Every structure is written in C-alpha cells, then in structure tokens.
C-alpha cells in the first residue's frame, strides 16, 4: 500500500490538521505495511517541505509553481492531478479542511473516483482500507469502502492526535506542475477578518453555551441566568449567532472560537460536528437536551435528557443553594 498525504499551508504556515492526517496514514502503515509520502503545494514551499520531511513520510514533494501562490480550485486540482499521475499512490489522504472541501471532490472526480469525506477513523479489514464517516449529524456511524485505485479520503479535524516529528530527515523532491494562467478561471482576493475579537472565550474557565433548542430570542434570559449564577461566559452555536441573538464573536465551533474551559454547559445544542470541534477540549462537559440521541451526549460527562426550559431554571436554583 502506498499513501500520499496532502499537507495544507496558508501563507507559509501549516494548517495543524496536516499532521493529524499524517497520523491517520501512520495508522494504515502500522496495520498493513504502507509507504507514506507527502506533498505540500504553493509558490515557494521548499522550507515547509524540509520541515515536513522530519515526519513519518519517506519522501516529501514540494509542489511549486508561481500560479499556486494563492489557492484556487483550478490550480490546486491541476497540480495535484499531475502529481498523483506521476507518483501513482493507492490512497490519497487529505485533512478535511475548508480548502480541501473546495477542491478534493473535483480532484477525485478527475480520476473517476469518489472521496470518502470527513472520515473519523480508518482501519484495515480483509486487506481493504475502510473509512468511518458520520451520518445524520453524528447520530450514526457508517463504514465505507471505495472501489478501485487511487482511493481518496479526507480526515476530520481532531479525529487523530497529530503525528510528531522523528529524529532524522527524509527526502525532499521538487515537483513542478505544468500550469497555464488560462487554466485558472477564478480570481481570489486577499483573505480578511471581519471584526477584531473583543471577547476571548479561549481564556474562560466556565462557559454556558446555547443552541437552537432555545427556539426564541425572548427565551435567552433562561440561559443568561445560568451564566450569571456560575460567573460564566455566554457562548452559542452557529444558528444563534446567525439569528443575531448573540454577537458572532461569541460563536464556538469551526467557524468561530475554539475553547477549552474547565466546564462547558451545552444547553439545547445537538452537537453538530462543526460545533464539537470548537469545544471538545473542555475538561468537563454538561449537556442538556431533550433528544436522547443528540450527538452532544457522546461528548458529555454529565447529560440531562429533558426540557431545558424546566431543567435550567431548576439548575439555577440548586446552584444558588449550593453556593449559599
């Protein structure tokens, strides 16, 4: 088995998911004996490739071209298509980043293949690589198998503990794809951030986070009371911020902040993966939700299956008593 790991960088900095993907490749190597190679793509990625050569991959390709200075799906797909045809890996692994979501399905389609996207695990069964994916927002897990080679799969953020560099360095090889300006149809502008973050939730010790179970803006005082009695920061899942019930800067999840408080109260949050990646570093998780099958309970140390409009006020009363 030969595995090609696509590492991701932006502006010369690693996306930290890159080495989680390397760890997933390492697991396959351990289970069935696999050669691991890696690639990093950009205009000038020599230094990054050198850095990556300290990890498990036997060879790192520095895929470099001036037209790859800024990410475009056309440029990335063309460059990686050429690399894969030259290197002929049996499995191509990506981090399931926003960028990968933008081009990897297109790349796999070039090979007439499907991408096993957002995999939370890989294992070898009957000599075949199988990927575990979540269905129904994490309520069920499916194991999937891809037909033919190369196979393509992307690995969910946080599914693997990032690989660590070893003592020596492996080979770095430059790969220069043939690219023409006319191949790149879209024109990206400079990335930007909308607001300076006034609230730093990453430092909070206690967070009360609210999700769509709260149903109505007028019900927000129910959770505000809990935050107040606990001296906690108030946060929310994405739909609450989209509705403007809390400012965007209080959003926890892949498009918001990543937090790791001592205790995280998830109130009326079902636990879509986009939210879980932002809070799974919390030490203690308390979940209150009426749906017993909500994925948030997978993460919770303490779970209350019940109506938040009854449970939260009762909890506020009990905490007041406990603190008195």
């Amino acid at each position: 088995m030969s595995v090609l790991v696509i590492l991701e960088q932006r502006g010369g900095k690693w996306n930290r998911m890159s080495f989680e993907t390397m760890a997933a490749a390492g697991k396959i190597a351990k289970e069935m004996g696999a050669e691991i190679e890696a690639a990093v793509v950009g205009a000038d990625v020599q230094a990054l490739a050198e850095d990556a050569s300290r990890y498990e991959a036997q060879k790192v390709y520095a895929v470099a071209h001036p037209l790859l200075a800024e990410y475009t799906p056309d440029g990335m797909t063309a460059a990686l298509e050429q690399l894969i045809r030259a290197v002929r890996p049996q499995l191509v692994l990506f981090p399931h980043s926003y960028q990968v979501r933008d081009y990897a399905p297109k790349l796999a389609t070039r090979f007439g293949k499907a991408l096993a996207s957002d995999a939370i695990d890989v294992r070898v069964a009957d000599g075949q690589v199988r990927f575990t994916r979540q269905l129904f927002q994490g309520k069920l897990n499916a194991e999937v198998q891809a037909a033919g080679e190369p196979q393509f799969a992307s690995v969910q953020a946080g599914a693997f503990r990032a690989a660590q560099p070893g003592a020596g360095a492996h080979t770095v090889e430059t790969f220069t794809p043939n690219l023409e300006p006319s191949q790149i149809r879209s024109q990206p502008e400079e990335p930007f951030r909308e607001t300076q973050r006034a609230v730093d939730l990453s430092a909070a010790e206690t967070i009360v986070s609210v999700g769509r179970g709260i149903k109505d803006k007028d019900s927000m005082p129910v959770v505000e009371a809990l935050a107040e009695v606990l001296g906690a920061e108030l946060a929310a899942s994405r739909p609450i911020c989209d509705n403007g019930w809390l400012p965007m800067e209080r959003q926890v999840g892949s498009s918001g902040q990543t937090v790791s408080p001592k205790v995280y109260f998830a109130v009326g949050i079902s636990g879509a993966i986009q939210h879980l990646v932002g809070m799974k570093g919390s030490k203690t998780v308390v979940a209150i939700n009426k749906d017993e099958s909500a994925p948030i309970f997978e993460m919770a140390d303490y779970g209350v299956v019940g109506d938040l409009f009854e449970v939260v006020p009762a909890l506020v009363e009990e905490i007041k008593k406990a603190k008195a």
Partner: protein
Amino acid sequence: MAVGAYWKKKRMKTIVCVKQVPARDSTVRLSSDKKWLDETDVTFEMNEPDAYALEEALQLRDKAGGEVVVLSVGPPRVTSTIREALAKGADRAIHIDSGSEPPLDASGTAQLIAAALKTESPELVLTGLQSDDAGYGQTGVILAEYLGFCHATIVMEVSIGEGSVRVKRELEDGWFQHVTMPLPAVLTIQSGIKKLRYATLMGIKKAKTKEVRTIPASDLKIERNGGLTITSVNAPQRNKQTQLFTGPARDVAKQLVEKLKFEARVI
C-alpha cells in the same frame, strides 16, 4: 444600472438543488440490513442548507429577474419538498425519480443532476454546502466538474455581474475571502446567510399549477464505478463515560449539582 439592464435582456436561469432529509430532531433507527436508517415513522424536510440556497436564488431573481428551477433527486416522497420550494416562489421543478433504489453517494447524485441539466444551460446552480443525512459536502463541487463550470464553496454573499459572479467565501477561524469567477458557476451556500421566507397561502395555491418534470433516474443512464459502498452502519460508541440524568427537573438539577460540586468539583 448596467447590470440590471444586462440581466433583463438575458433572463438569468438559476437551478437550485435541494435534498429531502430526515427532520433534524428525528430519532434514527437502523434498517434491518444495517446499511441505512429505517425510514418508517421518519418525518422528512428540506435539507436546511439547501433552504438557504433556495432563498438566495429567489432573492437574486427578485432583483435581476429570470427564472428559478428547483431540482431534487430521490424517491416519490421528495415531491413534498419540491412543492414547498414551488410554494416559496420557485418557477418550475425537475424531479429525478430514483424509485426504490438506495441513495447514491455524492458523485452518483452529481452525475444524475449533470445529465438532467444537459438541456437546461443555466447561468447559476446553487445548493447547500452539505446535507444533514449523508453529509458528504461534495455534490456541488462534483457537479461543477461534470458540467465544466467554475465553483465556489461555503458562500456567504453572492453578487451577480455581467457574465461573472463575485462571492464572499467563508474560510476557517473567522477568515473570509472574495472570489470572482465567470458564469456559469456552481455555488454551495452556507446556512443562515439570509432570513428564510415562509410559503404564503397564495404561494401554496399557485404551486399546484407549476410545472414539475419527472425524469426516471434510469433514463439518465449514468455509469457507476469507483463509488463508495456503505459496508455497515452502527450507533457510535461513547468516547466518555456519560452519566445520564432523567426525571423531574428539580430532581435532576439536584443530582447534577451534587456531581458538579463533589465529583467534578467545578462549583
């Protein structure tokens, strides 16, 4: 405005791909073959990100004119979701009827849609960034590749120019980026970017007279190889030992505070 005049003459056609999925709060049970869920007693609804794609398409049409065509792949039950889209204001619909076949992966679905769109030549194809059931998050991107269109994913804003579109994309960690690309294009829309409209009584009445073209999936004759096969489906194992409390609110609150104070020691 120049752009308005351009589109008045051109009559922009937008296809919106919507999927019908189990309602978010459904309890999911495994099917007897353990390859999918048991659909008995499941209520279905429009995939939420697709509802935002539809809203964006309707708002673009309300500004620039033209036509919005809603497209859905699935068994006959998806006609209820198609009717909902028509009631909200889509002009006509295409239903690719997959009969009693099991659901396809994203590449199979995209192949069917691409085949059905051969005779449509739209300027824009919008869809949600991912589905709530299988969650591949790929159909739009693969469809663009099959159609030879440009694409952008996780789109927050759309502004149409003459023969081009400029979008605001969401990147990770609170970053955004504007990208301009030539039309035709496929855009996958992020949830929550606009307020969703409700169907009016008038809209529901009008929907009954709107055209729904049904194409049996087997008529599209796509070739399937290199797809993904689900070998098994299981309930996830808990990573943590979760202590669950149920019962009257006052009792569970008492038990929980006890645990938080003496076991987790966080109060």
